[in-house]
């Protein structure tokens, strides 16, 4: 078998972060090649380089043995490389066919008019080749996520792609839809298309992948055959480092007071009957795969999203939370995973971001702000949390990720929250700054705050947590003690209880999930 794509010694850095170093990949035609690694291992960056979205800083890409430069997505398409992104890039108000051929519409009347008939015909042809029953004139916005994904695949095929990259294609699909997707992948494979398949789900690998390349911290670890390599081996290659040594002594909190208790939290299909509690001084980690519903749980507790059912108790007393302001009043703070979008007013200065949640405390008669007091507080937290900033008047967007995170933490410390929910507290933060954030979280717990940490990085969860709650597909599949192993967590994180049920009776499509 010959290699269609060879990526050699790929290097890529973003400001402050080295994303790829000596990364390798060899893709053969007609194979499904799984690319695995923890979040942040560099899989998506690697594939974005192949698809022309990012430019590599160093290394070589060979297509059919010839070196190529891929400088734009357009160029990648011309070379026959298609990518299906994790977030689908479709225009909901256009039809399936219009989406597929956007910018390349067949014309008539000397190029003046769009040839809608030909457009739909060409789309229908591709759908037929995929054995996909779909009217090309259907509006994409009305399709299920799975169907939209099919449209994306059809779009990629319309470029005569010989290489197809799929970034976690099954994250939003149910079992019947996954089967449909896998059938199409099998057909593409038979036609000689090389497929790079990024996924976290071990069971899927075993079902469709031929070979697996494992990455860690932006580096190439190895390539192994999918069928004969035990899952444990792949996981250990992904995780690598001996993190068990770093785990702190897990303090015993069983006698401490329960600060926050959540009972039977529900929200559509994303949160299903989640109950747990956090004690004073405890760090409760939340582990799970992408889309498991951890962030959704946090947002529902915080009142940022509506919940269908469930009660929240603070110190045993039920609290009524409908809006974030209710949660804050009850003493719950939420540090969002997307600091830039939800956590910080990045165009404003450090001082204003620190006091943003407590502005009323700095308001005198007539709504006048006490700038001097605000300054004092901001400076105090800059010292206390070692925030690197020239002054409290510095615009937040000019600071590094780690320092931005500290500002969000300062904001909630000032608000005196007893419960702090950290969603991906170290995302986009480099290794040195991560350790500082870890120390800070431990110190906060020791001061008696109840802390919830949501993280997609297992080592982080293991290192911080006193107990670990694991979620899968909206359900809490178990709560482990701090000394748990990665394998135990992975097991719970892939424990697709209802999915297993559906597998047993495959005659019924798993559209309406069993209640």
């Amino acid at each position, binding site marked *: 078998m010959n290699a269609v794509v060879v990526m050699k010694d790929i290097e890529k850095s973003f400001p*402050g972060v080295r994303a790829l170093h000596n990364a390798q990949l060899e893709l053969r035609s007609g194979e499904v090649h799984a690319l695995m690694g923890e979040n942040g291992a560099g899989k998506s960056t690697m594939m974005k380089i192949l698809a022309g979205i990012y430019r590599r800083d160093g290394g070589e890409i060979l297509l059919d043995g010839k070196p190529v430069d891929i400088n734009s997505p357009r160029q990648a398409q011309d070379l026959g490389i298609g990518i299906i992104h994790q977030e689908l890039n479709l225009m909901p108000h256009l039809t399936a066919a219009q989406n597929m051929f956007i910018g390349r519409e067949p014309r008539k009347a000397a190029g003046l008019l769009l040839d809608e008939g030909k457009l739909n015909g060409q789309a229908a042809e591709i759908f037929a080749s995929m054995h996909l029953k779909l009217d090309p004139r259907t509006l994409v916005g009305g399709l299920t996520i799975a169907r939209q994904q099919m449209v994306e695949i059809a779009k990629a095929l319309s470029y005569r792609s010989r290489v197809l990259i799929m970034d976690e294609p099954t994250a939003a699909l149910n079992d019947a839809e996954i089967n449909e997707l896998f059938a199409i992948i099998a057909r593409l494979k038979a036609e000689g298309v090389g497929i790079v398949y990024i996924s976290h789900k071990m069971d899927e690998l075993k079902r469709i992948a031929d070979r697996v390349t494992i990455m860690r911290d932006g580096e190439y670890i190895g390539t192994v055959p999918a069928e004969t390599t035990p899952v444990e081996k792949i996981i250990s290659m992904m995780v690598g480092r001996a993190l068990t040594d770093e785990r702190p002594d897990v303090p015993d909190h069983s006698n401490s007071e329960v600060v926050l208790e959540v009972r039977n939290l529900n929200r559509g299909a994303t949160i299903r009957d989640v109950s747990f509690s956090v004690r004073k001084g405890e760090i409760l980690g939340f582990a799970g795969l992408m889309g498991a519903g951890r962030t959704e749980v946090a947002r529902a507790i*915080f009142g*940022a999203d509506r919940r269908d059912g469930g009660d929240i108790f603070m110190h045993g007393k039920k609290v009524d939370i409908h*809006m*974030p*302001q209710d*949660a*804050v*009043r009850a003493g719950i703070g*939420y540090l*969002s995973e997307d600091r830039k*979008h*939800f*956590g*910080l*007013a*990045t*165009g*404003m200065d450090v001082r*204003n971001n620190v006091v*943003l*949640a407590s*502005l*009323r405390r*700095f*308001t005198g008669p*007539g*709504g*006048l*702000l006490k*700038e001097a007091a605000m300054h004092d507080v901001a400076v105090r937290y800059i010292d206390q949390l070692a925030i*690197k*900033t*020239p*002054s409290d*008047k*510095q*615009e937040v967007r*000019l*600071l*590094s990720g780690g320092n931005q995170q500290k500002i969000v933490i300062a*904001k909630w410390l000032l*608000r005196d929250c007893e419960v702090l929910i950290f969603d991906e507290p170290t995302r986009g933060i480099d290794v040195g700054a991560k350790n500082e954030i870890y120390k800070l979280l431990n110190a906060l717990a020791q001061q008696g705050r109840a802390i919830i940490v949501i993280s997609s990085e297992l080592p982080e969860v293991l290192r911080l947590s006193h107990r670990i709650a694991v979620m899968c597909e909206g359900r809490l599949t178990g709560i482990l003690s701090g000394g748990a192993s990665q394998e135990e967590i992975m097991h719970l994180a892939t424990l697709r209880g209802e999915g297993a049920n559906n597998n047993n009776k495959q005659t019924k499509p798993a559209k309406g999930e069993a209640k």
Partner: protein
Amino acid sequence: MSATASSGTASIGSKFSGAHRLLAFASLIALVLVFSLASPNFMQTSNIIAILQATSVNGVLAIAATLVIITGGIDLSVGTLMTFCAVIAGVVLTFWGMPLGLGVLAAILAGAASGTLSGTFVAKLKIPPFIATLGMMLILKGLSLVISGTRPIYFNGTPGFTQISQGSLIGTVIPGLPIPNGVLILFLVAIATSFILERTILGRFTFALGSNEEAVRLSGVNTDRWKIAVYALAGGICGIAGLLIASRLNSAQPALGQGYELDAIAAVVIGGTSLSGGRGTIIGTLIGALIISVLANGLRILSVAQEWQTVVTGSIIILAVYTDILRRRRL
């Protein structure tokens, strides 16, 4: 990032944002210079006062529009709201024969009430600001005509009403400086609004909402209430503009008003306030309003046809926004 490096970028950042204001101010000075060289009539005291007087109404409206625009919204209703408030003053003073103070109060309260309604549509019903205030613009236009019976309401029965805009408090104190009250009011409104924006909690939330509303909401702040408050304040300021224009014409002209919102928004934009929210100053808006008035006045003195004046104003808006984009790209 080392502390020195980041302080470097910060000072560049503030230099640039200051630069834009300086640029607008420099353009204003340049315009004044060009016109005074081109025509000896331009620098006459009477002409300068005419320019300032002509700026007063648009300036006050532009200040109202600035507040809403900083939150990331837009207010298309400022023009017809101004007229509506003038009509309300007419009803209270001329139809009902109430004392002057009550008429003034009624106009401002009518403005604030209308602003509260617009704000509620935007914040609570989640109607995009453009649509909500477009609707309000038409509603208020219609209501002004209905209430007034489509006829102008004159204020002949209220002595002193014309003094609101045309009298000169400063002139009575300093006889050499007959600056009309309308201009004085414009500057007072500007100072007060600047103060609110820079120093009070309402002002801070105005910027914060435009900067990142979701972050404010997740900070546990009742964003809806603050947003409504901003629209209400803007409405109240439109009430002041209504009093100014009615006083200058000694009447409430119900058919007037539409089109004023665009001049106001033009002044805001020329003044460097970002239409995407989070950034803006009252002094910038004031300079923007002055640039528009100086252009109109100067071109008229040079006998440039009215239609060409509009072409020039339009070009200035595009140029102003483009320089702003260039500046932001460099950061």
